[in-house]
């Protein structure tokens, strides 16, 4: 199946993906909360079974990890994209230094699957329990075979399934078997990244060049000013001094990461990450642009291709309109949903 078809499965039905790009660690011990609080750039207001979506920054305030901090009774589970397991453990260990808190990289003992799509909830309800339908965004629960986190980067119903490595193949087979009735597809990392690009969901592997902070990347909602955390000083210093902003741009022709952008013939910025949008039928890119022109509607030249800034997200996710109490994949043809792309 092509990457485009995989993305369209994420947009229209559901898709199962390997989660090898997600590192997972457990922080345990009497001081686990304090250890996590030390590294979190955001106020740590989570109860057991809830997740906090934040970042980890380097000392220059460059975001290096897309992170979910998950309160699990007295422990914390941490899911992260960006660093690998050992690197994540090292970042967390810095917060645990001198405390009664142990960091365990779960990479060797556990594996991850990702399930995304407007009907992902329906697949998972049959794999697990109908209670999945009531799981709120950024909530999680344990069941005998796996831990289920409600999170994703495609803008659709998304679930991350963490299971013991020896059970991973069996769980994958079970989801695929149940998912056959929902036209479940298998999607790779490239499709996930393309869907995330359409959703303007920050990609730590491709959208974190040297010199940027959460301010330029429009990620300030994931940090709290006034807290002490790695990079806090550099972030505060950048406040009010940022001169660029990452925005979504769209073009009819191919766009390529690294291309120089001009506006009215003047240098305006750089493309960080680009790709074809299967949902829209055009090309999208995250561009780091001069603040003065980083507004929807501004027309650009991106490496020779005409393009324009658009509002994020770039798609009208079906999951916004699919209500598990009223809809199902079986009745999708009869259910009237708005188009997947907002009229421009």
């Amino acid at each position, binding site marked *: 199946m092509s990457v485009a078809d995989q993305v369209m499965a994420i947009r229209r039905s559901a898709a199962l993906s390997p989660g090898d790009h997600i590192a997972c660690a457990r922080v345990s011990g009497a001081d686990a909360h304090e250890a996590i609080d030390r590294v979190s750039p955001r106020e740590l207001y989570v109860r057991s079974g809830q997740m906090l979506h934040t970042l980890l920054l380097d000392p220059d305030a460059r975001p290096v990890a897309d992170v979910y901090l998950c309160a699990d009774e007295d422990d914390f589970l941490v899911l992260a994209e960006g660093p690998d397991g050992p690197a994540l453990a090292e970042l967390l260990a810095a917060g645990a230094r001198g405390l009664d808190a142990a960091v365990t990289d779960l990479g060797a003992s556990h594996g991850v699957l990702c399930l995304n799509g407007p009907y992902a909830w329906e697949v998972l309800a049959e794999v697990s329990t109908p209670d999945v339908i009531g799981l709120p965004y950024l909530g999680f629960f344990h069941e005998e075979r796996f831990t289920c986190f409600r999170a994703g980067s495609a803008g659709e119903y998304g679930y991350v399934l963490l299971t013991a490595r020896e059970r991973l193949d069996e769980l994958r087979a079970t989801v695929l078997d149940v998912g056959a009735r929902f036209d479940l597809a298998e999607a790779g990392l490239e499709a996930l990244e393309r869907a995330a690009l359409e959703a303007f969901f920050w990609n730590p592997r491709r959208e974190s060049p040297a010199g940027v902070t959460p301010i330029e990347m429009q990620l300030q909602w994931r940090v709290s000013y006034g807290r002490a955390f790695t990079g806090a000083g550099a972030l505060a210093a950048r406040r009010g001094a940022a001169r660029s902003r990452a925005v979504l741009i769209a073009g009819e022709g191919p766009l390529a990461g690294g291309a120089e952008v001009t*506006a*009215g013939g003047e240098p305006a910025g750089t493309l960080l990450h680009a790709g074809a949008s299967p949902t829209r039928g055009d090309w999208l890119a995250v561009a780091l642009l001069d603040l003065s*022109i980083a507004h929807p509607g501004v027309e650009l030249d991106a490496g020779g291709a005409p393009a324009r800034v658009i509002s994020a997200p770039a798609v009208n996710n079906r999951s916004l309109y699919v209500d598990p109490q009223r809809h199902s994949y079986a009745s999708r043809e009869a259910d009237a949903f708005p188009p997947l792309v907002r009229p421009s």
Partner: protein
Amino acid sequence: MRPDIEARVAEREEILAVLRDVLIQRLHLRREPDELDPDAPLFGSGFGLDSLDAVELVVCLESELGVRVADGALMRGSFRSLNTLVDLVLAERAAAGGQP
């Protein structure tokens, strides 16, 4: 910058400022205006707005910007970020024969 682009940016900035003020003053978001990035998600984990906030936002769109939201369900796509709200305001103004 070309004058037409400059004017378009200025109009968007003006609407953005009103919307940021609504989020802080009326929806009691504990953030400074410069922290409210225009493409950040309004609901869920972003600014953390909920369904009650959405109702208040609809009311404020009319009272502060003169935009009446006819069908909330169909307008969900316009309630994704501050920028999509600005798009909505501009589209409504254009439809009403105001500024493009």
